[in-house]
């Protein structure tokens, strides 16, 4: 008899609160019934009982061990169900899976973060982690883009960040309204507005594939090396265990070898932006 645990069996987590972030995005605050911890950038598989499972990178701080949060955009079957869930219901969690951000490598550096849409979710978790070690960092700049001001998520958190020493937040929207007084245009336009000491920097990209693609191109033009750019890849993750084959991207299992990769690791892999 082997006493290996069943890697497919989720642990239960009670839904404590559902926060509406935008018309299509909600944050789910959960309390796992068993000990559960993760490193920033690692992801979990979330089960809606009897319905399905989907991968999410937690948006909460890894330092918070009692509760875990995911921020979910309504895009398909499982997420639609989630959006109808209420506090008190039970979800299932498997994980954490994959390779997250190598934060130790960011020491003594400037961290430039490019995020778009729901890509802010994993980034927020990263920002919490970076804030906890900010004495070891030079500075952290977040460039964030969304479609409309309505869809800019985590507004209170952005305010809080703007008042945090060493942290800077630049935002842009594609379609502004009369209240918007920040940038207009796609997320990459913000890269032209920031001052970075490229030699002593790392860049992190997380968002829709199209933004990651053009973001990476722009970062390379600015002079970043391939191995200074960290990409948070999204693929059709299912098992999270490097077994089901759904997340294969060239020779990589995104779920296990990633989801965070340097551009250097991926540049020879075909169709990474698809």
């Amino acid at each position, binding site marked *: 008899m082997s006493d290996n645990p*069943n890697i497919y069996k989720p642990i239960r987590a009670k839904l404590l609160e559902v926060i509406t972030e935008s018309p299509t995005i909600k944050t789910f605050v959960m309390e796992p019934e068993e000990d559960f911890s993760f490193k920033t950038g690692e992801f979990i598989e979330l089960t809606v009982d*009897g319905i399905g*499972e989907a991968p999410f990178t937690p948006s909460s701080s890894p330092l918070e061990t009692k509760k875990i949060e995911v921020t979910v955009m309504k895009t398909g079957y499982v997420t639609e169900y989630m959006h109808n869930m209420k506090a008190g219901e039970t979800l299932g969690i498997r994980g954490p899976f994959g390779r997250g951000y190598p934060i130790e490598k960011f020491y003594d550096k400037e961290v430039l973060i490019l995020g778009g849409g729901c890509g802010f979710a994993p980034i927020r978790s990263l920002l919490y982690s970076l804030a906890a070690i900010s004495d070891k960092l030079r500075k952290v700049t977040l460039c964030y883009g969304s479609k409309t001001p309505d869809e800019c998520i985590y507004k209170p958190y952005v305010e809080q960040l703007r008042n945090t020493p060493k942290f800077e937040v630049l935002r842009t929207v594609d379609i502004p309204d009369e209240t918007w007084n920040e940038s207009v245009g796609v997320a990459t336009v913000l890269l032209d507005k920031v001052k970075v000491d490229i030699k002593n920097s790392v860049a992190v990209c997380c968002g829709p594939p199209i933004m990651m693609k053009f973001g990476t191109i722009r970062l390379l033009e600015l002079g970043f090396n391939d191995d200074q750019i960290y990409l948070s890849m999204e693929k*059709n993750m*299912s098992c999270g265990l490097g077994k*089901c084959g759904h997340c*294969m991207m060239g020779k990589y299992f995104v779920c296990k070898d990633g989801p965070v990769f340097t551009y250097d690791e991926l540049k020879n892999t075909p169709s990474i932006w698809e």
Partner: protein
Amino acid sequence: MKNYYSLLNSDWNSAIDQLLNDYLIYAPIKSNNSMDYEPVNPENISEIVYNIPKPTTPLKTFFLPVKENLTTDNSTKIKRIIIGAPNCDIQGLKILDEIYLDKDYIDSLYKQKRDNTILISSSCFEIQEHCHCMTYGIKPYSKEIADISLSHVDQRIHLEVLSEKGVKFITELKNYASVSNSPETEIKDIELKQSKIEYQIINDNIGLPDYNKTGKIVEKANEEIWKKYSSKCVSCGACAAICPTCTCFLLIDKPNFEKVRQLDACQYPGFERVAGDEDALYELSKRFKNRYFCKYVWKPQKFKSLVCTGCGRCIEACIGKINKNDLFKELAN
């Protein structure tokens, strides 16, 4: 002294009858035009086919069934003996082991099934039309992974012990039959048969590029090739289903947080569809190409084990009559 034991076929048969008290036993049995693993019972023991390739179903299905409930299944503890797997199938287990016994995430169900199964492979003394194991460096008889390698020669069953489990099996077998060491001359006889078959497989596959070349060929093939060879593909996924090394699966949710694993195939439409309906493998020719890249380029970069064992089942199973070896031969030069 080689690790060979032998016994009379009739004694072997009655030993199997006894072993049925403690094990579920599967072995190849012929019916009409096909041959496949069947559960052995006292009535069909004498119909077991030895040393002729190959069961229709690949060996993998004993460890990764088409569908299984991963949270409630408890058949994993059943002790099994599987008789008659050809070496191509046995070698196919290597990549499965690499994936499912990966020490980071051991699949406990798979492991229990592996642990509780005694594998008795059988040397191929004949070949089938599409057998090409030797091209990929796999011999038509086992020297590893299996617990026992069986050869049936002149009314005697010879058992070459390959593992610790195999040693135990012989000890157990001795409770039921008189087992002796195979005489050197008979071992020579078996080895002669084996090398004849090796030679025949090589001969039958002249011009077929080996596993060191297949990756380069796949990488160099242009879109026209993929379009041409996939033009008769109907996305039935038979090639992946009967492949001894294809193991991709879907997880299906059932109430009470149960998970069901169902084997999947990258040839099915929607294999890579993500929430929001984006699908990198929407086009059939891309899915077709994906399978070749997976087997001959990507997995070889990632894993140590072969991901095509040359069993030829995909060629036999394809209703569009697509022959991967035609593709490799066409692009060989």
